[in-house]
């Protein structure tokens, strides 16, 4: 019993919340355009499963592409910053600053620069996912046990070998935790990108149904977004297990 508490407890609170929500909506007769009942949301989700799936694929493609680009870029730049203090000092403060820029301002610029295709949405995802990865990886690279590095140096390892054999594997845990944060956010980034300009995708669909006052469909969309976000998070967790079997 006690071992399953980890799964049972959240399930209980989830269902309790949903129950109270449903009850409130019914008792106080809350209008659909203010807050749809959970049952309504599930209904909308099932009824529009095909549409949601279709739009999901578009959003997922943007999100995953963006996440991958962000990951590669973050890894390269983090290694670059680790290699050169000058490079780090030159760009790190600016990276922090970019995080405070409201995406709503950047969105239109991305569209102006990149047009209306997938690119601006992917760039939005990259913009939102890059930072957590680069900061986690860069910090971890700087904190790798200097003795391990010295050992490799004393063995005559070249600079790239120090990275390949010690620095990168040692910092991989941090890299993956940054990646997990980003995986959770990347769908959100794609959605924001789609709000600005799109012809398909969950964000596009969400605005459409919102304009039609179909809040049940909006929430169905939200559920789908949550689902994909958690799934991507899970995928990264699994990837970590596969890449680093020694952790098990």
């Amino acid at each position: 019993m006690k071992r399953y508490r980890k799964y049972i407890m959240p399930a209980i609170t989830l269902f309790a919340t949903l129950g109270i929500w449903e009850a409130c909506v019914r008792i106080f007769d809350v209008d659909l355009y203010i807050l749809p009942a959970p049952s309504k949301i599930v209904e909308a989700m099932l009824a529009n499963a095909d549409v949601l799936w279709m739009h999901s694929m578009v959003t997922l493609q943007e999100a995953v592409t963006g996440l991958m680009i962000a990951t590669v870029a973050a890894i390269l730049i983090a290694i670059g910053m680790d290699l050169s203090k000058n490079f780090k000092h030159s760009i790190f403060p600016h990276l922090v600053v970019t995080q405070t820029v409201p995406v709503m301002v950047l969105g239109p610029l991305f569209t102006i620069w990149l047009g209306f295709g997938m690119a601006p949405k992917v760039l939005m995802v990259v913009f939102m996912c890059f930072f957590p990865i680069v900061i986690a990886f860069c910090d971890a690279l700087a904190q790798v046990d200097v003795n391990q590095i010295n050992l490799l140096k004393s063995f005559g390892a070249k600079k790239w070998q120090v990275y390949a054999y010690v620095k990168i594997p040692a910092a991989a845990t941090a890299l993956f935790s940054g990646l997990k944060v980003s995986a959770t956010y990347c769908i959100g980034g794609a959605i924001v990108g789609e709000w600005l300009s799109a012809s398909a995708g969950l964000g596009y669909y969400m605005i459409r149904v919102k304009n039609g006052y179909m809040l049940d469909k909006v929430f169905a969309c939200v559920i789908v977004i949550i689902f994909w976000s958690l799934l991507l998070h899970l995928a990264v967790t699994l990837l970590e297990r596969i890449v680093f079997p020694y952790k098990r």
Partner: protein
Amino acid sequence: GSAKDNAKKELKEVTLVLDYVPNTNHTGFYVAQEKGYFKEEGLKVNIIEPGDDSTSAVLVAANKGEFGVSYQEDVTYARTAEEVLPIKAIATIIQHNTSGFVSLKKENIKSPKDFEGKVYAGWQAPSEEAVIKAVMKKANADFKKLTMVGADGSGFAALGKKVDIQWEFEGWAVIKGRMDGYDVNYMPLKDLDKRLDYYTPVIITNEKMLKENPETVQKFMNAVKKGYEYAIDHPEESAKIMKKILPDTDFAFLKESQKYLSAEYRKDAKTWGVMKDEVWDNYTDFMYEYKLIDKKIKASEQYTNEFVK
């Protein structure tokens, strides 16, 4: 002193939720505010300016605001939604649809027929797509040959670069563009299809107000009407009032916009704000035809002229 405070206390507070950030479409409200017309009617009006252009109907329906600025299309959506939003239009701000398609003159886009092979940037509402489909169909053009994308909010700057056609309000973006030296073709929507000469924007209130507080609605509309009538008669003065509200906006542009709109607010109507069944029915039919709504609805369920007569 205290007498003044008492007088203030007696004012009834109401909230007006705009459709979007202030622009010259809203002149009447700000004139009424500035000239004290609301106060004369015993009202104190809080004007809410959302940055999101699709919340006013919900907020008014949810009684968070007594009045709102919305669009005919949104009212129709609201009234045909699965759970009907209890709102009604009580006045149109402008008698005709003052929006249309703009393109750079050099692109030589003169009719929807020329849309083929071009790129259109808009806000990607389903109704927008339907409208474009309709006008192109009417001109025997192939809708599939038009690329539809989302606008980036940069206005005319994008025209001729990645975008060929945009849909803009004549009284705001088109005037602004012309003043900025863009040589453009403007194709008013109302000239392309009579059904598309719908009301935009409209003033809405909720059914609760209509039932329980018609006097307040009347008082509000009296002041607003007076405000718009003032704007019709005094474009330059109203532009000055709007300049106070929009201190960052170029005054010459506001004046131009105001001059244009002063002729449009009441055009072809006997009094400001009144609406016609025909306009409502036309566009409702259009929306039904293009499957934007799944049932028809009578005009009388969507609007009333009771307060602007």
